[in-house]
């Protein structure tokens, strides 16, 4: 009975919609793409010269305030790798008159998220808070940014935490490849060759005085920008910022930070195996020194990378995942920093397919050197350009985009121009760029896996000299 009734309902529905029965013979056409209207950046200065950039975003009653310090781990002195990262981590472990626990309690009570971070290129204190509590949270953020106390007991605690993290990294193939690949491409002395946190021996030696001297040299208003995004207006927020950040003074002359030298490029292909007995998969990373963010080829390289390994339908993912089933996914990435960061392709593949998988990586790295077909180029350009507006959705997204402008000293029109730059990319451009930035016969092939099973098949590929690296070596 119930079935009959259902059938009748379906029939009725079919009648009512028969006038617009869908045509499934071909995919529906796509209308003209919507344009993205980016909100204006309102640039101001506090009385002490601290630059303040404000973007109004009145969707949700939240505010995001990020203090950007234009020095990161790349400014770590030789022998003190990890100092910039640990200095940033210590900022909220005691500041002004408050202890670490008191600061955390005060911020959490406001529903605020305050985090401190440091990458190779910059350091930041980031605050996300309901706009109704912004006035209460800003003095706490100012304490953390301007008046950190670097207590000895907290330093010892974080030091132990970081050393234990590195101990645990020995268990984790993903952590091991992240240490091994840059170490091999950049070497142990270039700053990009060691993780921002540094190595165990260096972490053991860092002192509170080291942190304070890094802090004094780099955390100063003439080396910083304050970004404010959210449900705020300049008229209301500027007096509050003046009160909390306006008295911050630069002492002495700004630290002279030498630019990170461009690393020497790899000259010939070599293979490196990090033995991880009984690993269920092999972590593969193939690449070399890539490009800095300042490259005029930024937009075109995004398109090139999208085709090679930057999207689901990219060649690497289609090959290693969809066609061969060797991996859950495969990708590629130009890590663009102030100096040339790494270009890397990667996948985690099942151990018994390691040799086959590495071969397929090189098939794709070689194939990208030839002219990309028109349809594939159009798809990639559309994917990059049409997906771009979604990168500006939340207060956090917008603040992150502003960080990019500040850190890499890019013109305001960068994002507006990006879509146009993508649309002009040609297949010939990509071929020229691939020839320059993707040279498979010079790249490092780094794998973390079960040497007993994978060494033979890898050697059979005759890619170049094979080096065996112990896990211990990565932590020295």
């Amino acid at each position, binding site marked *: 009975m119930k079935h009959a009734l259902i059938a009748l*309902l*379906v029939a*009725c*529905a*079919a009648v*009512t*919609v028969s006038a*617009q029965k*869908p045509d*499934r013979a071909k*995919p529906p056409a*796509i209308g003209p793409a*919507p*344009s993205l209207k980016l909100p204006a950046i309102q640039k101001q200065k506090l009385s002490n010269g601290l630059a303040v950039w404000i973007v109004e975003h*009145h*969707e*949700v*009653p939240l505010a995001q305030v990020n203090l950007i310090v234009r020095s990161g781990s790349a400014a770590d002195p030789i022998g003190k790798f990890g100092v910039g990262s640990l200095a940033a981590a210590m900022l909220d472990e005691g500041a002004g008159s408050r202890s670490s*626990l008191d600061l955390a*309690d005060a911020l*959490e*009570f*406001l*529903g605020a998220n305050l985090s401190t971070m440091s990458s190779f290129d910059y350091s930041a204190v980031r605050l*996300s808070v*309901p*706009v*109704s509590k*912004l*006035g209460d949270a800003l003095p706490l953020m100012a304490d953390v940014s301007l008046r950190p106390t670097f207590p000895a007991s907290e330093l010892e605690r974080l030091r132990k935490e970081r050393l*234990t*993290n590195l*101990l*645990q990294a*020995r*268990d984790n193939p993903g952590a091991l490849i992240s240490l091994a690949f840059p170490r091999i491409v950049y070497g142990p002395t270039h700053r990009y060759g060691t993780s921002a946190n540094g190595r165990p021996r260096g972490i053991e030696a860092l002192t509170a005085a080291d942190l304070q001297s890094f802090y004094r040299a780099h955390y100063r208003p003439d080396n910083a920008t304050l970004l404010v995004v959210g*449900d*705020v207006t300049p008229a*209301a927020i500027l007096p*509050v910022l003046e009160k909390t950040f306006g008295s911050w003074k630069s002492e002495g002359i700004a630290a002279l930070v030498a630019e990170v030298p461009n690393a020497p490029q790899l000259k010939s292909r070599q293979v490196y195996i990090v033995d991880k007995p*009984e690993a*269920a*998969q092999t972590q593969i990373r193939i690449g070399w020194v890539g490009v800095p963010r300042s490259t005029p080829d930024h937009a075109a390289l995004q398109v090139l990378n999208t085709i090679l390994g930057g*999207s*689901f*339908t990219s060649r690497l993912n289609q090959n290693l995942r*969809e066609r061969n*089933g*060797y991996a*859950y996914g495969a990708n590629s990435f130009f890590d663009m920093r102030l100096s040339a960061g790494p270009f890397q392709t990667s996948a*985690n*593949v*099942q151990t018994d397919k390691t040799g086959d998988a590495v071969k397929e990586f090189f098939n794709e790295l070689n194939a990208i050197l030839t002219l990309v077909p028109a349809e594939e180029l159009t*798809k*990639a350009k*559309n994917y990059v*350009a*049409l997906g771009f507006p*979604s990168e500006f*959705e939340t207060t956090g997204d917008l603040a992150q985009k502003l960080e990019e402008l500040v850190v890499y000293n890019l013109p305001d029109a960068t994002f507006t121009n990006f879509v146009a730059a993508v649309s002009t990319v040609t297949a010939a451009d990509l071929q020229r760029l691939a020839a320059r930035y993707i040279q498979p016969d010079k790249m490092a092939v780094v794998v973390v896996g079960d040497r007993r099973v994978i060494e033979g098949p890898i050697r059979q590929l005759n890619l170049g000299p094979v080096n065996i690296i112990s896990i211990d070596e990565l932590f020295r």
Partner: protein
Amino acid sequence: MTRCITLSALILAASIGLGAQRPALSVPHTQFTLANGLNVILHRDTSVPVVALNLWYHVGSGHERVGRTGFAHLFEHVMFEGSMHVPEGSFDSWLEAAGANNNGSTTVDRTNYYIDLPANALDLALFLESDRMGFLLDDKAPDKINGQRDVVKNEKRQSVDNQPYGQAFIELPAMLYPAAHPYSWSTIGSMEDLTAASFEDVARFFRTYYVPNNASLVIAGDIDIDATRKLVEKWFADVPRGKPVPALAPPAPVLDGVKRKTITDRVQLPRLYMAWHTPPFMKPGDAALDIVANLLAGGKNSRLYRRLVYELQIAQDVSAFQQSQALGSNFIVITTARPGQSLDKLQAVIDEELDKLRAAPPEAREITRALNQFEANFFRGMERVGGFSGKADRLNSYYMATRNPDYFEQDLARYRAVTAADVKAAVEQYLPKDRRVELSVVPGDKQ
């Protein structure tokens, strides 16, 4: 222009330092049901020119048969491989050519799919989504399952087998639930069962569960409500209704003592997992246990973090969470010992802290601090319209749990209603010392 939150006179001058009245959370929406039973929820939000299409099928790994664990998730993979009018590979390549992103995920209770797209490509997304709902099975389907079987096995290797401590999340459900209970196996399933899955399984699963009367579609973002409604009717009306899907009703799992197990893994440091049975998502006790988790391990001042990690420094980390599920939830505490420290010592501290909460309710400030964080996170959660856990996904989540998509304010109210006495009662009632699971992972060979 505030479409997602109704704000009353919330201007900064009034809010800084003065504490403005909190506006009610509201997500205005239009809801209707097609003749074939498909539930549809439309919400307009024009903050960026994107549209989030979010489709939930009310089937998860809990609906799998014994011997076919991991199948719901394997099936999810097959859904991206094309359908009758969409050649293999075209689902993704057509969407990428339109600037769209898409993905899917499977839990014990449901499978969700999203497509985030520029507003001009909605017609394409509806064509693709309706074609795989109505016409998934074509003559190429047997090959597709073989291809995705290898991919999913590598997903398991990547997310479980090659992860330190990865085996714990296979062991925990097996310890918590009796064999054959829908939650007794992990969503990723076993290699043997993934090998055994056949095309007949795919066809039967599709006809049983992937029917419009077992699904809910949310379209949120830069849309015109009337035009979108017409498009949905155009694309989905010819998808045939399926048989009603009976709700799962397994007997409630009972732990009548402490269940202990120790397994070994190639790890440097031992790790302890403690787990309890707790009330289902949205049922009384669920919100209180979220608050308990925050009091125990949410931030530096939380009780377990402060003692184990901050003061005693005998643990490297500690986490606690209420894993909310439709048939019944689990409360889980996880902690890793520092070198030279024993799991017994860590467990003794955890029991001391649970005893304290059983003996006396927490301070008012502690509860308020947790509530203020939940409230702020509600706002943060409403900023994004698409993806996993964006507004579109939450409208579907609320609809599945309560039949009311716009449950944001009521959900927040659940937390605001939790008192110190509720917290004490929740620990006493749901986290007993003598009925729980204790799993230790210690250094040794991989098991």
